[in-house]
């Protein structure tokens, strides 16, 4: 099950802050939620949508290393311009949503029609 990122951005009342025509080509296959970048580096997987409230510039490098194509910043926490620029250079989509990480995760689960794994 792949995610339609344009539709999902609407579902989470989000705003895409890295305008691009490539949104439809981004394939999201799962999700990862963490604010510790060392944890994301070690455990996030290629193709996952990353939901976080961490806004240091390092998020872009970590996403790039981990193969994360898009990041959702929860609670309307908008990253600074330098981070947006870097994301655009790296081709990583950034979305800001007013919802909490919990709510965004729940909606992502529903959209991906995932079942909890044991």
């Amino acid at each position: 099950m792949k995610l339609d990122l344009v539709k999902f951005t609407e579902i989470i009342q989000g705003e895409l802050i890295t305008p691009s025509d490539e949104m439809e080509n981004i394939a999201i296959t799962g999700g990862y939620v963490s604010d510790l970048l060392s944890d994301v580096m070690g455990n996030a997987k290629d193709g996952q949508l990353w939901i976080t409230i961490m806004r240091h510039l390092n998020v872009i490098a970590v996403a790039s290393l981990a193969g994360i194509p898009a990041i959702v910043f929860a609670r309307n926490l908008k990253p600074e311009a330098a981070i947006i620029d870097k994301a655009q250079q790296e081709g990583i989509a950034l979305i800001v949503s007013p919802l909490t990480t919990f709510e965004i995760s729940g909606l992502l689960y529903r959209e991906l029609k995932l079942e909890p794994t044991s």
Partner: protein
Amino acid sequence: MRQWKCDLHIHSVLSPCGSLEMSPTAVIKRACEEKLDVIAITDHNTMANSSVFHRVAEKAGIFCFWGVEIQTMEEIHVIGLFDDEEKAMSFDRELYEALPPIPNDPDYFGDQVVVDDEENIVRCEEKALLNSVMWDLDQTLQSIDDHGGFGFPAHVNATTYSLISQLGFIPPNPLIKALGITAKCNDDEFLAAFPMAARYPLIRNSDAHYLKDIGSGFTVIDMEEPSIAELKRIYAANK
């Protein structure tokens, strides 16, 4: 130029997690036993005990920096050091404003005790000190520098509350001149795991919360005198 044995990360009774035995006289006595020349009292997000420790240390022939262990918005611990009371207190006031007004629960976190030179309890700090201030890493380093201090990320090899645990790797920032490491850090293993850390001098400290741990980690620094100007000179030259 001479060598100074420094332990620049020591908690006092003011840190909720610091033992109530960490009073000025007891801490300085232990520092003397460990033959430390220079120390810094670095409580969490406050320098309210720094001046008292500075005076008690001075009488014992030890230089004590005004210090603080700040927890940034990213939950990174950063040490800020000052050698001037006025500058330190000016920074401390801004820092206190940046700390959320959440009351401490002593039963859960521990007591936060401000003391005087005679070890009398002056007051207990009401705000919870074990919290993040509303400054990010860059703002924190910049503010320390703007107030005439010297800042460095604390215990970067630790798996919690460290630059590396929170940000994954060391971000390029010209204000990062040195990296703090824990008393037990194995330098070779650490540098093998994080080669980018080799670009920075390492400052080993005890992070003592108990008297027995004072001096368990230390760094011998070659400088003319213990001062912020000298720390800045030494650590700029090493880069």
